[in-house]
């Protein structure tokens, strides 16, 4: 029977690992991810989780160990954050390019210097091109559910890509809320055992992976990864639907929208800020303001068509990023503009950078930013990027 436990976002992630029962888990601690690896240790040593747990000596090794285990055709799991994710970078590419369906919660935390353990999306945004599916969650239940959905998605023979679910440091990682969790046998209809169909390390059928391939093969191998992402794009709605059928919950598809049907201005945000935006929208709606919010849940594969569709009815987008690609703008704004430029509804997109290094962004702040969106809609063009709340 499912049970409701009071857990933090991190414990929800650890619980999801327990439910999915990976054969191998390899992980290394970093604030604010630590309580994931600690909880997993409790589960393993308490006999509640049968995974082989490799307490590696670095995140680079954590990902390498996951790659080794996954190459045997086994389900694998790890978790990290910020500097740990950055240290993994080389191996993120390796996992993506080797087509290994490793699943990893990433607790979004700022990069140093200065040392800062609070939330910021620049860590995961800088892993955009590593061949990892990226989801962003906005509450603890969504963290738990997304891990299960990602195993299903990643291990699909047409997809075979690693995936990460990102959760905001402390706002989710360390905040306790009631969350419904399951034992492994209760989810097996939704998430069957992983069977590697393509290749695996097996002396009975010896194959090599990763030896030198020159220009005549590399492009096709890269395109095959792109095809994996396109397969994931097709599969995501089905996985979401089936999850809802089995467990009665949905957190939205690629985008979790609120009041967008007749909204003139839509505010975009990821993670917990996206959840906050729904409250801002409700408040403005009570004042008769036609606002809507769109929480981008899936960053890779990027939902171009869905974004174009939302632009067909709205007059302006306000895109609030908790990340900054220095010398340009936030990760979400860049991508949303590129999606619209490819379509017929090139409505103005106001880019906003806010909340870096864990600075609070409140409902009132988001309401103000939606109001800016109405000025943009009136003028028919966006202003320069807004560095919201910057003290100078």
């Amino acid at each position, binding site marked *: 029977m499912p049970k409701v436990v009071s857990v933090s976002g991190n414990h929800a992630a650890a619980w999801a690992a327990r439910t999915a029962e990976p*054969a*191998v888990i*390899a992980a290394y601690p970093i604030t604010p991810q630590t309580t994931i690896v600690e909880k997993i240790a409790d589960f393993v040593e308490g006999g509640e989780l049968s*995974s*082989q747990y*490799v*307490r*590696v*000596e*670095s995140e*680079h*090794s*954590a990902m*390498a*160990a*996951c*790659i*080794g*285990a*996954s*190459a*045997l055709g*086994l389900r*694998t799991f790890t978790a990290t954050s910020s500097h740990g994710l950055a240290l993994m970078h*080389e*191996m993120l590419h*390796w996992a993506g390019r080797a087509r290994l369906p490793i699943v990893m919660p990433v607790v979004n935390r700022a990069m140093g210097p200065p040392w800062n353990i609070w939330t910021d999306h620049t860590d995961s945004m800088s892993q955009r091109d590593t061949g990892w599916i990226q989801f962003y969650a906005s509450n603890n239940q969504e963290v738990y559910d997304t891990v299960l959905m990602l195993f299903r998605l990643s291990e699909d023979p047409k997809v075979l890509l690693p995936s990460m679910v990102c959760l905001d440091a402390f706002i989710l990682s360390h905040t306790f809320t009631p969350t419904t969790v399951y034992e492994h046998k209760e989810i097996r209809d939704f998430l069957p055992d992983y069977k590697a169909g393509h290749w695996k*390390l*097996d*002396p009975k*059928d*010896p*194959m*090599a*992976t*990763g*030896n*030198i*391939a*020159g220009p005549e*093969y590399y492009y096709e191998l890269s395109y095959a990864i792109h095809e994996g992402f396109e397969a994931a794009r097709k599969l995501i709605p089905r996985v979401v639907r089936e999850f809802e059928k089995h467990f009665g919950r949905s957190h939205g598809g690629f985008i979790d929208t609120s009041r967008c049907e007749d909204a003139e201005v839509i505010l975009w945000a990821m993670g917990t800020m996206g959840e906050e935006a729904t409250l801002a929208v409700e408040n403005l709606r009570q004042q008769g303001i036609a606002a809507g919010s769109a929480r981008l849940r899936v960053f890779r594969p990027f939902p171009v068509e869905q974004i174009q569709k939302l632009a067909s009815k709205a007059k302006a987008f306000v895109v609030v990023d908790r990340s900054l690609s220095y010398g340009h703008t936030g990760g979400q704004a860049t991508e949303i503009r590129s999606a619209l430029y490819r379509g017929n509804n090139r409505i103005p997109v106001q880019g906003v950078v806010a909340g870096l290094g864990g600075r609070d962004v409140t409902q009132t702040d988001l309401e103000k930013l939606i109001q800016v969106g109405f000025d943009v809609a009136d003028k028919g063009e966006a202003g320069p990027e807004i560095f919201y709340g910057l003290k100078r």
Partner: protein
Amino acid sequence: MVKVKELPREEYIERGHAACGGCGATIAIRHALKALGGNTILTVPACCMSVIQGLYPKNGLSIPVLNTAFMTSGAAASGIAAGLKHLGKDKEINLMAWAGDGGTYDIGIQALSGAAERQTNFIYTCYNNAAYGNTGMQRSGATPYGSYSTTTPTGKRQHRKPMARIMAEHGIPYTGVISAAYPRLIYDTYKKAKDIVGTRFIEIHIPCPTGWRYPTWDTVNMGKLAVESGAWIMWEREGDEYRFLGRSKLIAEGKVQRKPLIDWIKPQGRFRFLLKDPGMMAEYERGIEREWEIMKRLVGC
């Protein structure tokens, strides 16, 4: 010691591999795999062996190979070992990491040390050609004192790291230091290592005509001269006991004389600066004597 005619006929490195002519590494892996057999999984970081395997979509090794990033062989093997344990196949399938000296002494030491500390069940081979062969012979922590490399163009001014001793001091059950010049000893060493549980570290000295600059036909001779002159010491540590091996044992016991170091150094282009500089030569010799003293103390003779 195994007789030549007793060596298994099976080959796990195929003809047509992409090593340089005269490469010592192919002798090493050929005999290591003869001892381990086909029920073996190999993981290989960036090194000459990633090239020697040959080009995708073919592979010159007839066992499963996970190529992995340069610094990760210890970690990738840790993951495979954990997976094999999960499958209950850790006793039936041999697991080996096969890394160069750069991937061991330098960039991979952390992952290897971690794997050994965790008592990971695998054989780690460091095939030591004493430089970064793959990238064109830059210095490594294993490059001997005085040797030319492309990043020490006037000769290296530091001694080699005592890597095998560092590994032995991890308390692993087996450490072996051998040479590609003695294939039967390679075979016997891997046969022995195969049946030991835990981390087994084997370092093989690899004469490399491309890097050491000697003619391709002289590989076995170059490997032997290194041992015969005492520049390379062969030993093993099983449990807590250190032993000299092969020719090094005879030298240590005073049964044979060491050949003059110059016999080994002179034919190699990489030592041309050392040859011209008596001060450097003396320093290199001092390092070798120090190695012998330490090893004799450890062996207890």
